[in-house]
């Protein structure tokens, strides 16, 4: 989520902000990364299948998947 349109446009338009680069960050195939900009609320939603175990299955680290966004937050654009 962005504070202004300038930041939103910069990230969404950045050559670094792609399914391939995001997929590489999480170790998932680029084809499985979905990027959906929602300009109305200056937000872009990135979705991907869980890289590891399904929610709550043995080996899962994050049942709600709620703390996995940091690699994306750290992406340089």
């Amino acid at each position, binding site marked *: 989520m962005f504070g202004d349109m300038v930041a939103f446009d910069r990230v969404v338009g950045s050559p670094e902000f792609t399914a391939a680069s995001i997929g590489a960050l999480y170790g998932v195939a680029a084809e*499985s990364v979905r990027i959906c900009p929602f300009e109305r*609320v200056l937000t872009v*939603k990135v*979705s991907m299948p*869980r890289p590891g175990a399904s929610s*709550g*299955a043995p080996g899962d*680290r994050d049942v709600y998947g709620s703390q*996995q966004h940091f690699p994306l937050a*750290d992406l340089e654009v």
Partner: protein
Amino acid sequence: MTRRDDDARGGEVRFLSLCGMLGYGYPQASLARGLAARPAFIGVDAGSTDPGPYYLGSGRSFVSAMQVERDLEPALCAARRLGIPLVVGSAGGSGARPHLEATVEQVRKLAARHELHFRLAVIPADLEPDTLLEALRDGRVQPCGPAGELTAERVRACTHLVGQMGTGPLVRALDGGADVVLAARCCDTAIFAALPILRGCDPALALHLAKIAECGALCARPAAANDALVGILRHDHFVVEPANPARRCTPESVAMHSLYEQPDPTCFHEPEGTVDLSACTFEPCGERGVRVAGTRLVPPERPTIKVEGAALRGYRAVAVAGVRDPAVIAHLDAIEHAVRASVADALAPAAEPAEYSLRFLRYGLDGVLGHLEPAAAAPPTEVGLVLEAVAATQELADTALALARSTALHQHFPGRKTTAGNLAFPFSPSDLRGGPVYEFAVYHLMAVAEPDALFPVTFQEV
């Protein structure tokens, strides 16, 4: 309720959504204010798969009975007092038979306590494995997201199998004069869209409003899943407003909700079809409400029901310990390596390494992200270590964990200065029995000619 929205025509349906999850709580004052808006019904979502497969697998509730009773009691009494329906969906948390039965029992108990009499509709969602197996053979089953291909083995491994009903069965219940509807596993939207659809409201608007309302005041600011929301459905738009005057909805906060739990903000899918939000407008309505218009519904190519099931994967034991010694922290990898070898040796030949799994979660290092965590610039001051064993039996899990824990406590490593112990245990006993571990084995879409027929409605006079 704000009086500034004067666009009232006939056919308006108002309702109150108690909170985002039955059992999360809501302020009594919000219930009172919500009731003052003269709702046509009270609805509440009682379940979710968000907390993982344990609850569906085990038949247990995600929230405590005490929490559920606290939330249900005032709402049930209020609904009876006003003579309006109370609709509860995904009863018991996961909406399988034991969950539904627990809720029915709670409602009956509350009815007896307050001497309430009403028509109760109960709608189970359990599916016979054969129903799903036949669909599988016919090629009528698809994964829901990246769930993998379904096999007969996975179907048979499930402890419970439920289908997620749409509005149809709830409409039947309400049409049959139900005062209280207890639906097992159902789409969150069905809880709030059923009565409006029965009364002839636009299904697209009804489903969109329902999608927002099912989360309580999550679309408000400050957001709250444990507070109430009032929904007003009209001919060509709807209005949402939090019951609590300390909260307000804004066009952005409501539009933002389109991103909730779905990858694409322009649409979401229900059994009734694809709800298209791409042309929606969000405008302020009064001081704390938002008016939404422009939602469209695209009917499905063929009727489909989402099916859920969880299978037992083993039993868990856990130990939690703190590590403060920098030398231990520096050697955690080596210690883990040695512990694994030691445990394998100690358990053989009674148990092979394949029969149990050990996990070392190092909070402060990489517990949350695992290998995705970039290397830290400096080591942490302390690490919270969680040791976990999962095995085919509870006894083996307990044993593997006990061996791992005692070995880790006393494990030697280069540069070790104290033999008092590598770990600080906050509890005695240090080992906690975790019980059964489940995994979602079925999370698929089943195409079926008459989905509503899978969810029979029965009426009882309480």
